[in-house]
């Protein structure tokens, strides 16, 4: 009996507040927009019984998904989300790998402190960390002031409200997600492997390519997915740092819902976003699985 309660309570909670809402989204994405409250059709009429159920299903259709393909805003937004996620993942990897590498090579007594320094920003508000860049990247912001003072540029660069600002913001906020898995892979690595590679004729650089990189491969893959997956649905960064030209699907969904009040289309957008995410999520799970097996 106790075991039953133990399983049932969290189970029912998740069914009620995760699974059912999700089914509702799916259902509404197949409904039509209506000038009513709630603003969609059909409504499920329980009073009408079986016939109500039949007529309810009869009215569901794929019109909203069809609509998404006709308006190029949507597929452009999906593509540009994917592109931004891809580019920023690569950038985060380029910035994060050397940091993770240097941390793993630091003296053991320093490592907990370095680790804490990487994790600390993660505990501070995401919103605040994005906001911090608004003051830096603005036209009259500190970066431009600094560059003008250096004499590198003569006129201020427009960075804020462009995709560049979005990239900077993403790299900045998601950096810990990239560093931590790579660091943990590198830190586990036995130093004598590098010595063995050198002993067998590798230069330091080729030892890095042939030993260090392959052995941190799982960390790199995990880090990339940990950045790529959430960035696709990102809302805060494009809306604060991006401009009108920055198209990201999270922002489109938000606007469709709050500004246009088109719930069925917003739901359809969400369903497709999720379908897009399923592939990287499955790949990520596989990578984690493989890693666990290799360790076990």
């Amino acid at each position, binding site marked *: 009996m106790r075991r039953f309660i133990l399983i049932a309570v969290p189970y029912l909670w998740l069914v009620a507040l995760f699974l059912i809402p999700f089914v509702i989204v799916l259902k509404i994405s197949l409904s039509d927009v209506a000038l009513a409250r709630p603003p969609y059709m059909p409504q499920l009429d329980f009073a009408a019984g079986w016939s109500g159920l039949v007529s309810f299903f009869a009215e569901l259709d794929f019109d909203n998904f069809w609509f998404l393909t006709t308006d190029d805003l949507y597929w452009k937004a999906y593509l540009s989300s994917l592109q931004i996620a891809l580019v920023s993942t690569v950038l985060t990897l380029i910035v994060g790998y*050397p940091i993770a590498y240097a941390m793993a090579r630091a003296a053991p007594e320093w490592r907990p402190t370095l680790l804490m320094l990487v994790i600390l920003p993660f505990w501070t508000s995401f919103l*605040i960390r994005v906001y911090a860049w608004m003051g*830096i990247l603005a036209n009259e912001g500190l970066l431009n002031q600094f560059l003008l003072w250096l004499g590198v540029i003569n006129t201020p660069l427009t960075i804020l409200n462009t995709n560049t600002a979005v990239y900077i913001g993403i790299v900045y906020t998601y950096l810990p997600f990239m560093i931590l898995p790579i660091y943990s892979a590198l830190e586990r690595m036995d130093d004598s492997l590098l010595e063995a590679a050198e002993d067998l004729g590798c230069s330091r650089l080729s030892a890095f390519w042939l030993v260090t990189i392959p052995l941190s491969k799982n960390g790199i893959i995990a880090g990339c997915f940990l950045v790529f997956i959430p960035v696709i649905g990102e809302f805060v960064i494009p809306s604060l740092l991006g401009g009108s030209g920055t198209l990201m699907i999270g922002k489109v969904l938000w606007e469709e819902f709050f500004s246009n009040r088109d719930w069925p289309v917003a739901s359809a957008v969400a369903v497709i976003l999720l379908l897009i995410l399923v592939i990287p999520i499955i790949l990520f799970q596989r990578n984690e699985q493989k890693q666990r097996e290799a360790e076990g």
Partner: protein
Amino acid sequence: MRRFSWFNATALSLGFAFLYIPMIILVVYSFNASKLVTVWAGFSTQWYGELIRNEEFLNAAWVTIKVAVMSSTIATVLGTMAAYVLVRAGRFSGRTLFSGMIYAPLVMPEVITGLSLLLLFIGIGLDRGVLTIVLAHTTFSMCYVSVVVSSRLVSFDQSLEEAALDLGCSAFDAFRLVTLPIIAPAVISGWLLAFTLSLDDLVIASFTTGPSATTLPIKIFSAVRLGVSPEINALSTIMIAIVTVGVITASLITKQAAVRQARDERMAERPA
């Protein structure tokens, strides 16, 4: 230290400069006398004063803390139960669905979680406010708690529980007297994580709140959309300070515990 070269030193200093300089700038400019955030006009604490007098911010902060305390506490209880079910309950029908529902919210985009919960609350006619945000936050943060706690439970020596049962404990007593004290650090860090996630959340709160409850992130977001403001800098500084003190204190406590344990072990090794 053998391979700790100039390259590593450069990577670390540039990396940490990148991570910390924006926040340092934020803090420094919160003490700026000028309304223009980008021009330094001398030291002043006036923005802190205005912040304290700003009722809207104070109300939002109060709502946020209430939501965070409630949701993280419920999430810790549910998440610990879920972790225990995942690691210890063995097979039961619907186990795959259950573990799927634990892991899915971790990778689910916030906009989708928010949207789906909002549609649920509207569907069942629940008035949106503090209660709905708490429900929403509890749902996604219990998944984080269960991941943290279950990773501790996996490495936990099950024979300890069996010893407790062998010595006459009921299953519940064994959990309360043996398992819980040992996994307590994971439960506490799960709570802290849930608390921070709730404090931080903008997107899900925006979807699930109503006019009666505005949280701090919502307030900040609507303020900074209009541009940079020194009051927000002051607010950010306070939040950064709280987090920094909290994290450093926590790490000092864990470090001290580790040092004490190491010392005790050394003492125990020494012949009496």
